[in-house]
């Protein structure tokens, strides 16, 4: 089967079909879910969705990088990166359809 890309519109359609709100409101609520997850992460909180996975923030210290084109060394500033770890339930679900 051809693989496709799922977007917000597909999630909104699923909410519309399963909850029975208007299409507009379904779409707003999908956005609200993503916004709340993002906001918690921005505040430095980890987000753990049972049977799906967890989003954690990892702080990376300063390190020396290199411009691959010019070979010049440049410092890479300390930054926060977001790491997603899938739950066992999700990993199993993905492998069952193999």
């Amino acid at each position, binding site marked *: 089967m051809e693989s496709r890309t799922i977007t917000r519109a597909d999630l909104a359609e699923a909410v519309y079909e399963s909850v029975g709100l208007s299409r507009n409101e379904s779409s707003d609520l999908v956005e609200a879910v993503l916004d*709340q997850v993002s906001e918690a992460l921005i505040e430095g909180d980890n987000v753990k969705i*049972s049977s799906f996975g967890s989003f954690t923030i990892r702080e990376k210290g300063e390190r020396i990088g290199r411009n691959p084109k010019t070979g010049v060394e440049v410092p890479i500033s300390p930054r926060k990166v977001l790491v997603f770890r899938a739950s066992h339930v999700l990993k199993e679900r993905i492998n069952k359809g193999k």
Partner: protein
Amino acid sequence: MTRSELIQRLAEMNPHLYLRDVEKIVETVFDEISAALARGDRVELRGFGAFSVKHREARSGRNPRTGETVSVEAKRLPFFKTGKALREKLNGD
């Protein structure tokens, strides 16, 4: 923040909705993403991030303690790449 805390926040923001509907919305969102990944589809949520599935071929591994050779089955692993907008917001840009 946990799933139930997320539901609680959304319920507070949407007092006109029944709690069971808010629960259903959160469940549907994560279930649709999971179902897409199980089908081998990609999920792209601009500004937030993209979920994809990567294939790992079967290989022979080694038990580091005993040195014994074991075969590792082929598997599919979920991956997440943070979206540009969220990555920038995390770093206060």
